[in-house]
């Protein structure tokens, strides 16, 4: 399993995809830094009125699609691409169980995404601190939820790659992420208006893919008890105003376990 994980990690790092994501991330961080510093220098409303935490929340909000995108793009062909190329045939003829292959892939991709997410949000926090001396309250819990977000997507996408062609799986994963994010944004409206239908949509999409719910809970935790946090709740679809419950975090963990179990179950039974 370790060999598969190491090879998967090496593949992810060698492919142009990661280079592109790193370049985009660098550009994003530069722009975020310039924007935040300019705001702080001018004593602008975001810093002066809303407090430093808003800078952190804006950074997290803007950065959150990046790990999700990397998760989808790196995992879409985790199993299927090797089946399509025929390379999997030679691997499966080796004395290694199919479950070990799936778990090794997940381990490699999970390590990559966890490291990338921590570096990304670490950089965001550094920028916020440098510009406005802003810090992240309850950092371990918030960062834990933010790391869980791409891991959920990786688990779901690897599950898809055990039975879908790579292209279809990538499209399905992006669609699912989009639907979950849209559902989560709609749900925020219920913090201000009691619209059950929107709340139901948010819950259903969160159950389909609880990744966006983890971002919402992380944002809510970060904003809790902060001066700017109250204002942040008014940020509408971007906010964590309608906060997912702790049960949703447990659901997300069960979701990941079920997706991993499903991927192993399907792959050990499919013909190659």
């Amino acid at each position: 399993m370790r060999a598969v994980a190491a090879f998967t990690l090496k593949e992810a790092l060698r492919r142009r995809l990661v280079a592109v994501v790193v370049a985009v991330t660098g550009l994003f961080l530069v722009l975020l830094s310039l924007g935040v510093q300019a705001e702080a220098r001018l004593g602008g409303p975001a810093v002066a009125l809303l407090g430093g935490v808003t800078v952190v929340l804006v950074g997290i909000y803007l950065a959150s699609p990046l790990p999700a995108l990397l998760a989808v793009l790196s995992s879409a062909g985790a199993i299927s691409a090797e089946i399509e190329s025929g390379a999997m045939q030679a691997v499966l003829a080796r004395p290694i169980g199919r479950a070990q292959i799936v778990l090794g892939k997940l381990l490699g991709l999970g390590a990559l995404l966890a490291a990338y997410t921590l570096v990304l949000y670490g950089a965001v926090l550094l920028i916020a601190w440098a510009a406005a001396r802003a810090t992240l309250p309850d950092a371990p819990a918030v960062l834990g939820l933010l790391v869980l977000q791409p891991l959920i997507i990786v688990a779901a996408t690897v599950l898809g790659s055990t039975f879908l062609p790579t292209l279809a799986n990538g499209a399905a994963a992006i669609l699912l992420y989009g639907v979950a994010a849209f559902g989560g944004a709609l749900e925020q409206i219920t913090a201000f208006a009691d619209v059950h239908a929107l709340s139901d949509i948010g819950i259903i999409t969160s159950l389909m893919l609880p990744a966006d719910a983890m971002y919402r809970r992380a944002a809510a935790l970060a904003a809790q008890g902060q001066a700017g946090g109250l204002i942040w709740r008014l940020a509408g679809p971007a906010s964590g105003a309608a906060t997912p419950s702790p049960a949703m975090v447990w659901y997300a963990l069960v979701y990941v376990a079920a997706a991993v179990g499903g991927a192993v179950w399907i792959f050990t039974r499919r013909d190659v």
Partner: protein
Amino acid sequence: MEADGLTRRFGRTLACADISLKVPAGGIFALLGNNGAGKSTFVKMLVGLLRPTAGRAQVLGRPAGDLAARRQIGYLPENFRYPDWATGAEVIGFHATLADIAPVRRRARVADALHRVGLGQAGGALVRSYSKGMQQRLGLACALLGEPPLLFLDEPTSALDPVGRRDVREILQALRAEGRTVFLNSHLLSEVEMVSDAAAIIRGGRVAAAGTLAELLGTAHEAEVRLVGGAALEAAVAALAVRWPVRERQAEGAGVRLVVGLAAPEDVADVAAAVVAAGGRLLGLQARTRSLEDVFIELVRA
């Protein structure tokens, strides 16, 4: 390797039908058949990539596809493309790890495998820079890794040039000399004939013939006869047909060209005598042994 009634269906398509084969240890066994005859499906069941719909198989005394069996086999798939972002040595190194080769011996084994297939100098290059033939050599190096006693090679020379084909032939002969067993799937019948000890021909997913190469070709002697004879021509042809099956007949001017099957090469003298005794005039007589290709074509067209 022993298969007993191995059957595989894909929906309504019967890819392999009740195939029973026994391949003894040591030597080169070839599985022959048209495209879509079920050769690759059969091998995939033996290495554990496909589950049989019915029947069972044993590989080196273990159920086909189980971990202990896979520990002792090498497999070259028919269609594959190794990761193009890795070097050849990295691909083989990855497989060496999967094959449980001890870390202290891994580097040497990787170098040996690459050297054996002629990629000793190209091991450090990225797979994306390899030609199709080099990729096939890389696949063969993967299969040879760990010196397995049994190798399944699915079309090992299909992408190779004549030099590469000869190289592979020499590798196969060396493997036989080392006492290993090679299960070969190939379309290249002339090459199979050069290296194989035994073969099976499958048609429509069923075994049409199986045996040693000598057995498959044993009754495949024939003679090409050219004769004239005026009024006695048909009498001469009839005299031949009584003793030997006429496989081909073709008019040639005032005469005829026949191909008759012989029980043994020595029968050719009796053919000449029979023509003369019937009043025919012999213009040409040539004994020949049919090739594996002739036997194959005859069987798959039957």
